[in-house]
């Protein structure tokens, strides 16, 4: 989609380096001594529940919020020197920006395009954001997904080297989310660096090369989604309910089962060999003479990693 080659030789070093970053609002510690590196060309995800400090972290990186202490190195530059040059190289999408309802899609993109020295034409950006049919529509009349794609379009007008996306799909329906994911993947395929925050684990698993799980302003786990999931030593979760009182002790002794616990009336087993554990479970239920009312299995997700690390769910609010 982008035909623009950057003139500068490929720079070395990480795209983003955070050193001992701290930010406190009144008596709330939002970011608590954060160290992080984002490599050039990777899509890096900050995953965590609301209030974990994701937005504060990304806004410090974007030069919108000053940190109390610590260092931010971005594309080999810093916000203290060369902020103007840095702004030209960044694409930023903020959480909950409302673009002007009275402008059309084209007018909005033209406005943002006018701030950058270089970048694709207005028409190209609109096509990239899949808004060509809506080019003359007022922003106020767009759907949630279209507005979000427009916001992404506004972030792409300067042909950015580094794209910041703060909860890009929050509040969208599944179809609109998938459309937006496609756009982000196209951008990724063009070799650009992305830092995104999300509290959807499926989003992080699909889009991100590496993920940092944040809680209370700190990184509590870092790695590829696969590594993180593997780190809890569980490959699958088997969830079932049965009519009657179950003897759970028999379950934890079964082959391939790591742990068993009960949640909201159903039993959750963390399992690393599904092909052994499920037949064993069915046999055990048969021995106890219990009828199965529900049975579900899913591969372990980042959500399970978060639960394993904190004992809480990502979306507990």
């Amino acid at each position, binding site marked *: 989609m982008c035909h623009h080659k950057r003139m500068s030789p490929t720079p070395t070093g990480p795209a983003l380096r955070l050193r001992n970053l701290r930010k406190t609002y009144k008596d709330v510690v939002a970011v608590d001594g954060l160290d992080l590196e984002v490599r050039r060309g990777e899509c890096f995800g900050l995953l965590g529940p609301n209030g974990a400090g994701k937005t504060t972290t990304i806004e410090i990186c974007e030069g919108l919020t000053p940190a109390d202490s610590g260092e931010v190195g971005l594309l080999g530059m810093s916000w203290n020197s060369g902020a103007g040059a840095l702004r030209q190289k960044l694409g930023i999408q903020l959480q*909950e920006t409302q673009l*002007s309802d009275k402008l059309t899609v084209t007018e909005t993109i033209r406005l943002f395009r*006018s701030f950058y*020295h270089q970048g694709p034409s207005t028409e190209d950006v609109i096509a990239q954001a899949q808004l060509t049919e809506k080019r003359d529509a007022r922003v106020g009349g767009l759907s949630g997904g279209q507005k979000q794609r427009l916001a992404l379009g506004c972030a792409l007008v300067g042909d950015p080297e580094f794209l910041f996306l703060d909860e890009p799909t929050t509040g969208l329906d599944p179809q609109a989310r998938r459309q937006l994911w496609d756009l982000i993947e196209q951008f990724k395929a063009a070799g650009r660096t992305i830092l995104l925050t999300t509290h959807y684990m499926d989003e992080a698993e699909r889009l991100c090369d590496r993920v940092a799980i944040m809680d209370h302003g700190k990184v509590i786990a870092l790695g590829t989604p696969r590594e993180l999931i593997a780190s809890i030593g569980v490959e699958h979760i088997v969830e079932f309910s049965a009519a009657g009182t179950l003897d759970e002790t028999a379950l934890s002794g079964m082959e391939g089962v790591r742990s068993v616990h009960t949640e909201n009336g159903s039993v959750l087993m963390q399992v690393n060999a599904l092909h052994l554990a499920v037949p064993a479970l069915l046999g055990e239920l048969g021995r106890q003479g219990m009828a199965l009312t529900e049975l579900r299995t899913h591969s372990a997700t980042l959500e399970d990693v978060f639960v394993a690390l904190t004992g809480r769910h990502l979306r507990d609010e």
Partner: protein
Amino acid sequence: MSNRDNALVQLTLVRFREFLREPEALFWVFGFPILLAAGLGVAFRNRPPEVIKIGAVSAHLRAALASEKLLDVTEFSSGDAAEQALLTGKIALLIEPGPSARGAGGQVVYRYDDTSPDARTARMLADDAIQRAAGRADPVASSEKLIREPGSRYIDFLLPGLLGMNLMGSGIWGLVFAIVDARRKKLMKRLVATPMPRHDYLLSFLLSRLGLLVVEVGLVAGFGALVFQVPLRGSLLSFALLCVLGSLSFSSIGLLIASRLQTIEAASGFSNLVMMPMWVLSGVFFSAQRFPAAVQPVIHVLPLTALIDALRAIMLQGEPIARLAPQLGILAVWLMVSFALALKLFRWR
């Protein structure tokens, strides 16, 4: 890619688009002042002098009164009918022949309510006419010159006031609303995240104000000139310069008000707090001279007072702009102080 749009041009175009696509704003800026001028102009238009109805009970008196054009005399044959007309307010004054030729009571009796201005005027006019008809000679000769020309009517006084009020309203409200709304919607934060030159953002407001100013002032002043023949006796250039200075002063005050506010409610409250005293004190609808001498120094330095005084001087008296240095000075000080403070206090998020 080569012919990139200019940021300042785009920002200014956005200002115009946002304004022109807001029907309510269009009405308040363009429609309302014209409706107000039309309404008040009609209500306070100068009528021809009113003819007062009076009654007389003798044909002899009626003949004497015929020379007075401002009195409409009805002759009554019976005293009862005449009295009835007087008591029900159909006539303001009743003239009856007196009981005696020379003694107490006089030859003519005027019956009227002395608390009614119409009745008192009628009595003076009737007495004059009767005395002159009887041969009175006035020792001092006098003649009259009537002034009914454009420039001294209420609409002439009012229109510069409305122009000033409009410049204040659109300058302050136009900036405050747009800026606070952009801040509330986090649009300002989003713009600051781009390489947009920040001074272009602020400058776009001033440029769009100047553009709209031409329409805004032209429409109201043109309406006044066409419909009510309100004059512009001074030079058009002085008038234009004054409008620009006034608009920029109020835009700066708007920028100052908007520098930190986060909600539309607060913006609305603050703007009204600033504008309300000037609506009342600065002589939009009536002369500011009516307020006590103690508060005159305060009224004098208000920007709206300075602007309206100068507008009236240029439009009605045809003063050259050099003679308006005090008013221009007051506006310039408001402009510079507000702008400097606004730049110091302004929050970009």
